Structure formats: structure tokens, C-alpha cells
């Protein structure tokens, strides 16, 4: 039975939600994916023209004065496809990129795509494991600290996080190498100081080989995890503190919910929104952040490939790693958007 005594009072005009109900998560996902594809295309455009507008002549720079006759220059240009007009070159670039052909590395004399695939795995392993660990630990520390604000746990965890946050990650890596890799006084080094495999490992996919890789990755993973969990725990703590004064938490308590349910179902769900954005965006940048860690620990990953390509210089490789890095950022952005829309119904409409 409807108890509204005066039907005139319940005006139909008071129905703002009626039209906004139509758009669900599906159309939100489609819109965000299309947006990311657009960004990717724009990035390809920049990736191509950025290197074309740089001053200098490829034949002169790369030839290092050895290409003297016009015939030699023409031969060089033909070999690298530079005899076509810029627009034709762009079209060829698009077609070959779509086919996974990123050109030839000058230094290695190998296809760039093959180099990148070889180097992608160590980076993904390093970045992936560190991101998962730092997210889990950081979010946990942030939640516990904020919910028991001012407790000993909160003070220790916030203090540690601030200290770690202030440290450059490569310095942290060097300290770990000095302490746990090289060893000090009578303490022997427990972990290798660099590389991904021991030289005596024949099959890296055997149980022994995998254990060896884990052993090699321990220090770099600890370094990256510590560097990023500090940021995540501080952000999670402050966004949860922001939620603590909200009225809906009082409603949840008044309903008779246990404290832990009020925290997890109501407060944390809302506090995760800003944290998700930061973590997902960071994944994109962690790929480049891993450059310093890969250098410190001599890990043959994408970061090391990029630094080598800059010092050579190896343009095709640079273009390729640039492509992978920016595709990573765009992909991480897309993931952030999708998680955000899933967590918060307000952004879907």
C-alpha cells in the first residue's frame, strides 16, 4: 500500500534518476576503450614525427662521416626507407607497426620487436611482482593506520613510509646491495648483486633455474616494493581518514554493523577510489621507473635497453621502447578508468 496521502505532493517531476539509469557499466567500458585507442593512435603520430623533426641528417649522423659519395648516401637512405616522402614513410611506419615490425636495431643488427620481446619479460616480472606486493602491503598499512589513528602502529608505519618515500629508489637499491648483496664485516652476501641468472644455469625454465631467477630478483623487487608501498600506504591512509567523518559511516554504525564491516564494506570501498587512480597510473610510470633499478642491478630489461639505445644512439630501438612505454601508460590509464567506474557508480553517468 502506498501511504502518501496527497498524491499531488509526489510530483512526477521529482524523478531525475529516470533517464540516467539507462547507461550501465557496458557502455562506460566501450567509451573508455575507444578513448584509449584514440590516445594510442595519437601517440603513434607523435612517436613518428617527434624523431623526424629533430635537427640533423640520419645519413650523416649514423654514417659518422663514412658516407661520402651521393651514391653511398642514396644507398643508405634506401636501406632505411628514407628515400620516400615523409607522409609515405608515416604510412609505411603505420603498416609495419601494425604488423609488429618496428625496424632494425643499428647496434644489434636484430629486429627491434625481437629485442623488445626478449627484454620485456624481466621488466614485467620485476614491475608486476613489486606492484602487487607494494599495493597489498601499502593498502593494508594505510587502512590499519587510519582506522587506529594515533596508535603506535600508525606512528611507526607513517614514519617508515615517509622515510622510504623520501629516499631515491636507486640509493635504496645501492644500500641493499651493500648490506645484503656484498655483505659487511663477518656477514656474507646473501643475494647476488646483479643480473638475472647465475652463469652456471643451463636451463632457465627448470626448477633450479626458476629458483635462481627468484633469488636474483629478490633485492630489486624489495627495492621497488619499498619505494612504492610508501606512497600507497600514505595515500590510502589519508583517503581513509577523509572518509572517517562521513555521515554514511554513522548510518552504518547505527544499523548495528560490526566495526570491521563498517570499515571494509563502507569506508574502505570509498577510500579505494583515489588510491586506485594513483596505483594504476603508477604502473605505467613504473616501467620507466624501473630504468634506474634495472641499471643498478644490471637486469637485462626494457629500461636497460632504453639506456643503451640512448648512448649508442639507436633510433629504431628508442622508438620501439617509447612505443611500449607509452602503450603501457595508456593501458594502465584504461585499467584505472575501468576499476574506477566499477568501484564508483557516479563516474559511469
Amino acid at each position, binding site marked *: 500500500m*502506498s501511504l502518501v496521502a496527497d498524491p499531488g505532493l509526489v510530483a512526477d517531476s521529482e524523478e*531525475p534518476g529516470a533517464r540516467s539509469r539507462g547507461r550501465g557499466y557496458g557502455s562506460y567500458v566501450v567509451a573508455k576503450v575507444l578513448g584509449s585507442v584514440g590516445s594510442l593512435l595519437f601517440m603513434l603520430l607523435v612517436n613518428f614525427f617527434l624523431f623526424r623533426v629533430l635537427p640533423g641528417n640520419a645519413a650523416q649522423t649514423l654514417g659518422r662521416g663514412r658516407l661520402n659519395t651521393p651514391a653511398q648516401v642514396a644507398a643508405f637512405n634506401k636501406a632505411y626507407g628514407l628515400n620516400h616522402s615523409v607522409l609515405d614513410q608515416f604510412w609505411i611506419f603505420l603498416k609495419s607497426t601494425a604488423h609488429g615490425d618496428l625496424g632494425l636495431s643499428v647496434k644489434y643488427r636484430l629486429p627491434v620487436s625481437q629485442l623488445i620481446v626478449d627484454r620485456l619479460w624481466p621488466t614485467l616480472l620485476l614491475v608486476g611482482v613489486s606492484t602487487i606486493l607494494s599495493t597489498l602491503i601499502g593498502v593494508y598499512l594505510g587502512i590499519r593506520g587510519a582506522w587506529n589513528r594515533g596508535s603506535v602502529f600508525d606512528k611507526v608505519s607513517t614514519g617508515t613510509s615517509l622515510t622510504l618515500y623520501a629516499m631515491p629508489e636507486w640509493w635504496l637499491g645501492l644500500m641493499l646491495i651493500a648490506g645484503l648483496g656484498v655483505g659487511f664485516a663477518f656477514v656474507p652476501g646473501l643475494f647476488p648483486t646483479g643480473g638475472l641468472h647465475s652463469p652456471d644455469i643451463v636451463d632457465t625454465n627448470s626448477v633450479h633455474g626458476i629458483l635462481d631467477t627468484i633469488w636474483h630478483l629478490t633485492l630489486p623487487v624489495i627495492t621497488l616494493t619499498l619505494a612504492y608501498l610508501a606512497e600507497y600506504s600514505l595515500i590510502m591512509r589519508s583517503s581513509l581518514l577523509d572518509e572517517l567523518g562521513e555521515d554514511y559511516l554513522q548510518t552504518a554504525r547505527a*544499523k548495528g554493523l560490526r566495526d570491521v564491516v563498517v570499515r571494509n564494506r563502507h569506508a574502505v570501498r570509498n577510500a579505494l577510489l583515489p588510491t586506485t587512480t594513483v596505483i594504476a597510473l603508477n604502473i605505467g610510470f613504473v616501467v620507466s621507473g624501473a630504468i634506474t633499478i634495472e641499471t643498478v642491478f644490471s637486469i637485462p630489461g626494457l629500461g636497460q635497453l632504453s639506456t643503451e639505445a640512448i648512448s649508442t644512439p639507436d633510433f629504431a630501438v628508442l622508438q620501439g621502447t617509447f612505443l611500449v612505454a607509452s602503450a603501457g601508460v595508456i593501458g594502465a590509464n584504461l585499467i584505472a578508468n575501468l576499476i574506477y567506474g566499477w568501484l564508483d557508480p557516479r563516474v559511469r553517468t
Partner: protein
Amino acid sequence: MSDASLLAIRDLHVTYATGDGPLPAVRGVDLTVERGQIVGVAGESGCGKSTLASTILRLQPSNATVSGTVLFDGRDVLTMRWGELRAVRWAGASIVFQGALHSLNPVHRIGDQISEPLRIHNPSLADRASRQRVGELLDQVGLDPQRARSYPHQLSGGQKQRVMIAMALACDPELVVADEPTTALDVMVQAQVLNVLSTLVRERGVGMMMISHDLSVLADLCDRITVMYAGRVVEEGPARRIFVEPLHPYSAALSAAFPRVGDPAARFAPSGLPGDPPQPWLLPGGCTFAPRCPRAAEVCLPAEPPLTSYGEERSAACVRIGEPDAPSVEPASGHVS
């Protein structure tokens, strides 16, 4: 005033510990709600009425020190164990919070938020039964049951407040505390929300404590009214009588603050009060209302006047009642319109 009352608050003191020292928000309040009775609590912001409401379910902030007793169904809420308290929360007494805009969780569907207390207090409830109950509740507050799938941001302020009412009635509580349920709503929607709330409460015989600064609204809806000023009760009595012929000068000021349509005298009567309520950490000596009182005299200054009976279930805390140019007290046969 026996323990058989639904809610019996006795000598309640609530003091907040702040950086500037103790802040007394509620100072010795007595209040009774019988089963099926609607009791209004009136007063300006900062008079302690919301603090009073929060202590009924022991929801006061952790920096508050509470003394006195809050007997709900004869059991003291302030000293009961956590498990017992959780059972009383919402199933025994529920709250319609002020600020409908923020009292619902923005990331959960309203249907889930309404069914949440149902499931907590009755874990064996089947999904279907709980969905059906949510539909009934939404229907009763005049919302389409399909709205259960909406999120709070898809509803207007009035709709959100009606969702809060549906939620408050979900577990068939014996007492509903409505803390300024219509703040931040426009006048038409206010009337509608109050209409839904009072009809449902009356029909089910639920006791209600209704908090508002608007004495005219309380006079319409309530059986009795308690007027609070600076953390104390200054007047208590039958709702219409307090509105029409207030004893305490503060009740008179609250009553005059809302013009009565068709009363030519009200157009020219002084309405409103000079100044603000006293800061709780700087209470004036003697009668706390004296600095703003149009009738203040020497006699008001030595001590805070106690709540004194004025026949016919009325009481007020003012020493000047009955003195010259005090509001006249009608005999018992007086009109109650």
C-alpha cells in the same frame, strides 16, 4: 515516568574533551518517550539536541564522556555489552539522520543499503524475501520499488530522505529517532517527507523522537515537546500548548520565529532573538538564557533556575514565570486547537 517507558533518559550529561578543555554539550537532561508517542525536541543549533540523539544508540564520538542513564525498554544503552548494543541498534531503535545527502553510502545501491540491516538482524533471511521486503518499504514511502537498483546520486534530496525513512523502518523498530529529517530540503519536499514519516509512525504505533529547530512543525506532529537551550531542558509539555502559550521566554521566541498565516498581530510582533546561543565552554553564570532574554532581571543572575512544575504536565525553568508581564498560563480548560 516509570522504567516501563520505551525510552527514559535520566540526568544525562555529555561532555566533549577538546583541545580547549572540556565542552559540556548536554547538562542533566531528562526525557521520556512512551510507546507510540511522538516527542519533539526543539532548540537552536548547538543546544545539544543532536548529541542527545546520538547517545540513544551510543553513537557519540569517542572524545565524549557520558554520565546518567539511557534506558531503552528498561535496559541501559550506555552500559550494555557490544553484542547487546548491536542488537538494539536499528532493530530496537533506528535513526533518520539529518543531511540525507550524505547519510547514504554513494557506492552501494539503495536496495542493498536498505536490506543490509535486515540481513544483519536476521541472518537466515532469504535473498528473495529480503528483496520483496525492500520493495514493500520503498512502496510505502512512495517510491517505485524498481528504485532499489538506483544509486544515491540518481535520486533527488527528497527521494534520498524517503529512502532513509524506508531504511529506518526496515526492521520494525519500536523507536525512530528523526534528527532534523527535513534540513536541506525545500518546503514542498519537507511537507511530503514529514507526511510520509508521521503517517507511517502513527500507523505502526512506533514511538518517535523528532528533533527540529522548527517549533511549528513539531507542534503539528508531536504529542509532547521538550525545548532545549545550552544543553539543558528549559520547557517541557504538551505540544500545542507550548507552541500557543509558551511559558519560558525562549520557547516564546522560538514560537514567534515562525509567522502564523492569518494572524495580523504576528506580522508586527518582534520575531527572532538578538545574539547567539552561548558557547558551551563560556556559559554565563545564573540563567544561561539571561543575556538574550527580553525579560531578564536581577533575580535571574544568581543561579540556574531548576525545571519546575506548572501544573497539568507542564514544566519550565524560569524564575520569572507568573511575575508581571509574564506569558499568562491558561487554566486547565484552555483551548488546545
